[in-house]
């Protein structure tokens, strides 16, 4: 076989792939994740549209909605309250040492309340709920998908987007602000306990000082943020669960991806919404 001088010698041989296939392989390697990214958002858009369309049609599945309030709300309360309490306690301990250093320890109640209501309470609640509820919804709907229970619901003439997805998303939206208030309350309460252990102060005085600089408007923006967090957690959990493929391994993957994606989007939404609130409402 004669050697073509236009082809480099090291590429000639049985193992060397021809140049076009290298280009194709590189293109595929780069294209697949990009394609998957846009495909995921496209499917999420279609899913959201189907849920939205189903939500305005009767019947409204009130009983299932109540069951989801219990599953998502009541059962998340202990964990959210504990997280809020721990954050309040630690925040009070850490802030105290810094404020004492600057001789401003009298500002502690106000700083603590402001910090918990504005940022710590909502984001901690969002992340705790996305962990507990996101995984729960992803795994439950995922296992329903692989065991054909979602097909069975559809086969009996019931819209699964309404019965399964809309009820869970609505429950998340309505429950998140309430859980955030619980986390805020526990945070402030345990902040007071931490402060009272260091320097005796009555709860009434702590609260008076704490809320002296806060108005009702200060509650509105964080509450609105938690509504968006609820929408994100519910939508992503249901979407990942209802598109599960591949048996029990797929269920595990759906649960994990629900937590990872909902936490990621909650953090992203927090950053964006804080900026929006600062620009338009401060």
């Amino acid at each position, binding site marked *: 076989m004669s050697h073509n001088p236009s082809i480099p010698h090291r590429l000639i041989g049985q193992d060397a792939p021809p140049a076009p296939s290298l280009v194709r392989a590189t293109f595929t390697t780069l294209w697949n994740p990009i394609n998957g990214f846009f495909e995921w958002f496209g499917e999420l858009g279609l899913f959201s549209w189907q849920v939205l369309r189903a939500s305005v049609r009767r019947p409204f599945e009130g009983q299932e909605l109540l069951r989801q309030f219990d599953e998502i709300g009541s059962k998340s309360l202990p964990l959210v309250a504990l997280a809020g309490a721990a954050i309040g306690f630690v925040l009070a301990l850490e802030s105290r040492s810094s404020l004492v250093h600057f001789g401003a320890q009298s500002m502690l109640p106000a700083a603590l309340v402001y910090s918990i209501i504005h940022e710590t309470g909502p984001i901690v609640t969002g992340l705790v709920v996305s962990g507990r509820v996101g995984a729960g919804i992803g795994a439950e709907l995922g296992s329903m998908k692989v065991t054909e*229970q979602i*097909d*069975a619901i559809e*086969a*009996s*003439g*019931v819209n699964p987007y309404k019965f399964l997805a809309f009820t869970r998303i609505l429950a998340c939206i309505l429950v998140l602000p309430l859980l955030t208030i619980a986390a805020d309350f526990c945070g402030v309460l345990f902040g007071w306990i931490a402060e009272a252990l260091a320097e005796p102060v009555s709860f009434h005085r702590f609260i008076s000082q704490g809320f002296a600089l806060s108005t009702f408007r200060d509650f509105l923006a964080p509450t609105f943020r938690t509504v968006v967090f609820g929408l994100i957690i519910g939508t992503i959990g249901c979407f990942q669960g209802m598109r599960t493929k591949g048996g029990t391994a797929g269920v595990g993957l759906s649960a994990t991806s629900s937590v990872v994606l909902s936490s990621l989007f909650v953090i992203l939404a927090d950053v964006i919404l804080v900026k929006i609130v600062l620009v338009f409402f401060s």
Partner: protein
Amino acid sequence: MMPAEQQVLLDVEESGAKPAIEASDEKNAGPAVVMRGLHKSFGKEIVLNGIELTVNSGETLAVLGRSGTGKSVLLKLIIGLQAPDSGSILVHDQEITRLDLEALNAARKKMGFLFQNAALYDSLSVEQNIAFPLKRHTKMTASERGDRVKQLLSSVGMESDLKKMPGDISGGMQKRVGLARALALDPGILLLDEPTAGLDPITSGEIDELILKLQEEHHMASIVVTHDLQSAKTIADRLALLHEGTVHIEGSFEDLEKSDNEFVSQFMKRDS
């Protein structure tokens, strides 16, 4: 070109335009399901390649075939869980493939589906599973619903297990509850996906007896997907063997047993 056996054994009634049939008359009228030129592919894999089948009212058709030949897909196309690539499915003279969601849900109420693993809702009790379609599609009061659930569970021999959760009952019992749920709305067509799969021979026999008894009571058209030849022989009036995406042969159990087609005799003799 159709195989010779199929041409001989086909008993297909051409579907003409007929006046609308009242729900109560559907069980006794003409063909219940008519499939014409049904094609379905998943990616490059062709699963169904021109299925032609008719199931008459009150008749039980067993669909046989090797694993992966699209038997379960066929049932899912009939109830609208999947859409065919091309072809037509008439259910009581109504074209299923072109219905919007609301009309499709209305058509689904006339069909009962028993899934391969029963697919009971595991967050609901046995009683709530059966009440699920009744609650959504009928105007029954709670006590009427309770009576209907008890009646259905009694017909499948599970009246004492009302409050149990699906995870607390055996596979055979789950199939019975699945059957009761499929019959809740008194459907004209019953679709059964491997009703005896994963069950021991005695329980399989009991499920077959139960299906026969329910057939007699409800006079439905039934399509049973199965690998179990003994079960097909017991419960089906007619059998259809799928091979390479088409109906390879159609006829009674004896017709299939007598066939000298190599694939058919290989399939039929495997279990005998």
